[in-house]
């Protein structure tokens, strides 16, 4: 186990430790990782990023992806997936408290982007100033060259609202989607 301070979810393991664990095929099993929600979210994201990296390399085959690219995205993901605040999800008459973590909502928003053609999600921010206030969402995305930006942004915005409001009492206020980049894929030349 690493002695870095940036351990994930109180597991005692860092991003680098989790990367090595994934590379080893998650064996031997480490309960402190497998039973930790934040570690599981980061591992899922690493697997998704790994698939994306391989696809881009196979499709473009122009030059290998820089390690810094992968690292910067993963650090952003790790920052988001720290569970953060608990947001009230529903109230019951017997006093049961049901909450969802900010980290779970970040993962949900990224999943929405993964499902939209030609969109890569960059930075996600949630703003929830008061317990009963609607959630405001800010997302930065990259849109594939040639894809209509307005349509992509509308799809992202509607998708985020629908995905969040499916859960209990959660309500969405503003959804700001910023196109921060344009990317190429499917064999297009840079």
């Amino acid at each position, binding site marked *: *186990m690493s002695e870095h301070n940036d351990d994930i979810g*109180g*597991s*005692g393991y860092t991003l680098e430790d989790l990367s090595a664990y994934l590379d080893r095929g998650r064996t031997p099993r480490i*309960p*402190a990782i497998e*039973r*930790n*929600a*934040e570690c*599981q*979210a980061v591992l*899922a994201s690493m697997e998704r990023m790994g698939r994306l990296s391989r696809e881009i390399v196979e499709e473009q085959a122009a030059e290998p992806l820089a390690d810094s690219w992968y690292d910067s995205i993963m650090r952003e993901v790790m920052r988001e997936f720290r*569970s953060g605040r*608990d947001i009230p*999800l*529903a109230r*019951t008459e*017997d*006093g*049961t*408290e*049901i*909450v*969802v*973590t900010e*980290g*779970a*909502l970040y*993962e*949900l928003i990224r*999943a929405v982007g*993964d*499902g939209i053609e030609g969109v890569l999600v960059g930075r996600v921010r949630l703003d929830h100033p008061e317990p009963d206030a609607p959630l405001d969402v800010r997302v930065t995305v990259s849109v594939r060259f040639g894809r209509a930006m307005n349509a992509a942004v509308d799809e992202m915005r509607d998708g985020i609202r629908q*995905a969040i409001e*499916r*859960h*209990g*009492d959660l309500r969405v206020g503003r959804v700001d989607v910023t196109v921060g980049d344009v990317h190429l894929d499917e064999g297009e030349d840079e």
Partner: protein
Amino acid sequence: MTRITAAELAPRIDLAVTAVEGVRECYSARPVVARALEHVADVEGSLAAVDDVPGARAITVCIGVSTEDDSAAVATAVAAAARGAGSDDEPATVRVRVARLVAPAS
């Protein structure tokens, strides 16, 4: 009825929660210090956290739910299952924490 201890109740809650439809994953809800001790001792304790003060039992469970399900509905069912796991009718407060909303495998 004999009062059951937190150590006896927690694994029963784990089983009950795992069986609830819509629960994709269960995670440790125990405090960081408890998890750290488990890690050092290389043991796997229960996932549910049960704080057992007589007359004021507090149960916390931590789950992952599919993005396609209403996590509030699943969590409500989880809370009922956690309450039902104890057979001693001890009143308890229950907190269900949805820690992941998991996209279905494509």
